[in-house]
């Protein structure tokens, strides 16, 4: 680390390769934050003149600022929504969506619990907003007679939104609320590992780190139980719990601000390494090619 602070200069495309200076402001999804932050860090080692500020206001909060023109890049753990598109249009912000990695939610249980696979309906029975299940055998009679202890992220995380909207698909866009909530994934890990009927969900790579104290459930979306893994997620088999992660780039900023361009180029160039640092599943070759193509489209 270290290095002298460079002076801020607004724009000017003075050469693409490593010579730029200036500031880049990134905000948005806290899920994607580790990747964008890692990109900033790796870039700063090569070119400390580019000053990148990365915040994590959440996907929604990030789009709010992005469409106001306050930020150069917005991280997102879901595609941009209609009203956000409208807001950007209103302010004349043109942008490009780049997929940067794949995230897989993993449902985990206490290793001692004799449950290995859930169907999507069973997930809904477990986590749905109307669920009142308190014992595993209420989910399925074949499951053990064991009290359920639920752990999960708080209502403000994208992970929660993802579970509520995309997996359960409830009208109310909510899960049940009588669970132990924490923004800290460690809390969930420790809660599940320490409680016999414990179960919870979070990102796949986070599970990988704690694989010795937890058991991941396979998911059956009508085509048999699929174990969570990088391959199944990339291949699109692990549905509906795998999702794409994006960054949204402000086209004008990319073209006018060499620092922004350098940051984004660097990001995509080193995407595999960055995804690894961010503990996400890297893009498959096809998806990576698509992202590169979209990037080239910005300059045009």
């Amino acid at each position: 680390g270290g290095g002298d602070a460079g002076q801020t200069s607004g724009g000017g495309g003075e050469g693409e390769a490593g010579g730029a200076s200036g500031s880049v402001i990134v905000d948005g999804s806290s899920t994607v934050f580790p990747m964008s932050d890692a990109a900033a860090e790796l870039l700063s080692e090569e070119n400390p003149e580019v000053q990148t500020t990365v915040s994590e206001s959440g996907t929604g909060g990030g789009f709010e600022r992005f469409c106001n023109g306050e930020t150069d890049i917005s991280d997102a753990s879901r595609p941009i929504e209609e009203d956000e598109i409208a807001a950007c249009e209103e302010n004349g912000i043109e942008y490009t969506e780049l997929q940067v990695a794949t995230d897989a939610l993993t449902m985990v249980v206490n290793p001692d619990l004799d449950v290995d696979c859930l169907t999507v309906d069973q997930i809904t029975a477990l986590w749905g907003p109307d669920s009142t299940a308190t014992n595993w055998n209420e989910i399925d009679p074949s499951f053990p007679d064991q009290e359920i202890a639920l752990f999960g992220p708080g209502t403000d995380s994208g992970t929660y939104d993802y579970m509520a909207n995309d997996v359960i698909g409830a009208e109310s866009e909510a899960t049940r609320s009588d669970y132990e909530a924490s923004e800290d994934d460690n809390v969930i890990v420790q809660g599940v590992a320490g409680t016999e009927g414990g179960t919870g969900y979070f990102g796949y790579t986070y599970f990988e780190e704690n694989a010795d104290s937890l058991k991941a459930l396979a998911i059956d979306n009508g085509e048999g139980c699929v174990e969570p893994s990088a391959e199944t997620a990339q291949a699109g088999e692990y549905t509906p719990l795998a999702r794409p992660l994006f960054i949204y780039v402000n086209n004008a900023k990319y073209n006018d601000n060499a620092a922004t361009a350098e940051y984004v180029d660097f990001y995509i160039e080193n995407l595999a390494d960055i995804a690894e640092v961010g503990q996400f599943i890297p893009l498959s070759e096809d998806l990576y090619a698509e992202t590169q193509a979209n990037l080239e489209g910005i300059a045009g």
Partner: protein
Amino acid sequence: MSIATTTARRTVERTEVATGKSKERSPGSIAFLVALWFSLFFGVMVLIVLIVDTAINGAPRFDTELITNYASRVSPETTGFRAGILGTIFLMGFTALFAVPLGIAAAVYLEEFADNEKWYNRVIEVNLQNLAAVPAIVYGLLAVATMALMGFSETGTVLGGSLALALLILPVVIITTREALRSVPREIRDGSLALGATTWQTTWRNTLPAAIPGIATGTILGLSRAIGEAAPLVVVGLAGSLRFDPEGLMSQITALPMQIYSLTSQSQEDFRVAASAAIIVLLVLVLGLNALAIIIRNKFQRSW
């Protein structure tokens, strides 16, 4: 004049004085004293446990990289808090710059000029005590509104952060400055006024200089409260991560308590170790400020 009627008073029953035991050391008294000792040292014990526990957790990271490196995601084992520490120092500097002159001016007015009988001065007084108890996070909301009002669209700057913290400690500075002014004896003021000095001359030449140690102590204690605040900084949008040094009022910064807060929710053990080590750094800053305040207080304390 009615004279006492009990003149036929019995002779005094003297209690023996040389009993060899003292009522001051009766079991009840001793139990009470022990309870008081416990009360006094309970908090200190907690503090020691806290520091020791944190220090043990953070021990592997007591190295210079902790303060010279920027935050690293790539190599958690050498991550550092350079940006947060510098950001915190900048924040403290500007917070003091905003809050201290204003706070002293307000305190001087209330203590030396205002007529305390007037209702509006009493309102100010009650209001100040209220503000001292307003949750810190609310000052974050106020700073956001103020920044918007002043037309600054950039969030996460030194300006926004130090504004929030300055608003937060202003009541503390005012209240402690007033106490310091109040402790300057009336006689000193009277002596000056009786020579034909105006109230302002008296304040500027006599009262304020005499109150400087108290004002310094209050300011430092206020700053030591501000230094650990993360909540209002989150609200004003300070960045979670950046890797360059602050340069001025409009620089983007992060702050040490914010970095700690965000690290506590990281999965990697290395980050938690670093967070523990950073907590020790933060505590050293806080304890240092407090020690400075005590030194000033004891060194310059005047017995009038």
